[in-house]
């Protein structure tokens, strides 16, 4: 399916191309649904009404069916989160090694409560279930990046990494040079 004019404004050309490939990839078109929702959310920030409508149209199912599926999965959201969504695992292995202390520290540093978004829209913080990093606990994810072996004192440094990405890029360039 070629991207429509609305698609061009909703999704980047790269994402539109990815969608074209995804609906062709599976023996059954609908199998592309969950990956499409994830990639759309990565780009748009959340599953807006326009995203739901566009995905439904591309797969050939109703918007209701898309919502029915999307509401099942905990990573999919219908409201924007911060640009960097901090997901603190507090499940057993992380809890035993101080996850709640780390979670508290993030809230303190950012001045927001659970699922809160900072006023500049840069960060949000939430408690999540096991993220599969139990032996390197406590662990968090910032969007898709893992950070392991945390302590409350490491929290400000992690936030700085995301606040000042330009400095990090310069460091990377130095490394590559």
């Amino acid at each position, binding site marked *: 399916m070629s991207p429509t004019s609305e698609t061009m404004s909703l999704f980047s050309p790269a994402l539109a191309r990815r969608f074209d490939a995804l609906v062709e990839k599976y023996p059954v078109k609908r199998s592309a649904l969950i990956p499409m929702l994830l990639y759309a959310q990565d780009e748009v920030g959340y599953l807006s009404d326009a995203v739901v409508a566009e995905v439904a149209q591309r797969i050939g199912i109703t918007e209701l069916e898309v919502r029915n599926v999307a509401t099942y999965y905990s990573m*999919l959201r219908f409201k924007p989160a911060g640009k960097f969504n901090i997901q603190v695992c507090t499940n057993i292995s992380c809890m035993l090694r101080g996850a709640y202390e780390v979670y508290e520290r993030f809230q303190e540093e950012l001045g927001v409560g659970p699922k809160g978004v900072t006023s500049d829209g840069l960060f949000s913080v939430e*408690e999540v279930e096991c993220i*599969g990093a139990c032996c390197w606990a406590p662990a968090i994810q910032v969007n898709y990046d893992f950070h392991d072996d945390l302590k409350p004192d490491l929290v400000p440094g992690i936030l700085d990494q995301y606040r000042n990405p330009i400095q990090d890029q310069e460091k990377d360039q130095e490394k590559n040079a």
Partner: protein
Amino acid sequence: MPRLVSHPDEIKLVSRRFGMGATNIDRYLELGGYEAVKKCLAQGPEWIVEEMKASGLRGRGGAGFSAGMKWSFVPKQSAKPKYILVNGDESEPGTCKDHLIFLHDPHAVIEGTIIAGLAVGAKMGFIYLRGEYRYLLEIMERAVADAYDRGYLGKNIFGSGNEFQIITQTGAGAYEVGEESALMESLEGKRGVPRIKPPFPAVVGLYGGPTVINNAETIATVPQVITMGAQAYAALGTPRNGGTRLFCISGHVERPGVYELPMGYNLKKMIYEVAGGIRGGRKLKAVVPGGSSTPVLLPEEIDIGMDFDQVGKAGSMLGSGGVVVIDDQTCIVEFALRTISFYAHESCGWCIPCREGTDWLKKSLTRFHAGFGTDADIGNMQYLAENMLGRTFCPLGDAAAMPTIAFLKKFRKEFEDHLNGTPCPFAREGVPQLTVV
């Protein structure tokens, strides 16, 4: 980057290429990669299935079913296409082994998937990772693309005339999708609710076709079994429990990590020698031996071999290999509450005993831990949990009920200590008590 660990008692088979750059296909080949699949192409499907049966390799996802037997249930003739499904939806709390496999040895997963395909006559395989593992999906995608470039995947794999395609994808956050039939629903673009069985996936699975579904660790083990031979592999473990296993030791130990040890390795030794004992010189209080759904063991119950049968005899399960170690400063009521909160969050809502039961248990435990429990609560929680057992489509209901029953039975005194408004004796300063979310 997850830290790798090592111990002299380890026998590294599945983990032998960890930290060796084997995500690069040339490096994987240098390290003996894709030899097993060539051997399988020469020997044929029946030989592969017999080798797998003889190896004693049992499913590493938790159920511990013989991989060879599972493969042998797939009908030879089928009107619908057959599929291989690799379950990398690793979500059982305490389990992080597949994480390392995808990170360090993606080609072993691909090779194992191709071999499974050859064994049952499938032309397509799916590798499904949990949604949180996006960076691991990207590693898998690169590896799959490299395998296509070399002709190891495609219409004519290794010039043999056989076809095999692999599709990789992730979920989007759902524990329940790790259950085999729910995983198929998710792959079909639906809510991850379980299907009733029978029919079993080997007969009616993905898109209605016969489907083999194996855990990622099981699949990554397959090339090792083929390379070293079924007998040699089986001999590493205990009777009916072939080979080695990735044990994820987490919690209050000095050296947490993923260690590959022979099946049947002593649990006490695993905690005190391999993982360096209890952190800070404290005492052991309890061990969850196989992921959070397995009944807790007391210190006097851990002098056992870690294989499916011996842990079963001790009243628990080997499960997914997630050994969670708990020290004597931990409140078991809080630990039980956190365990149950997870299952309440993850219950898909399809079966009433699970949907309502997990929620009631969570509410009762929350109230109990906050100091508002009553005498009747202990009996009520036990009654509720016992009535969830075996009454749901999938094992999630049992996964919540079994540990609850064990916590109540084995730590009854600690539950009683929380009664009558007594504050939790283990309350940590400056840390808020868990509340209902």
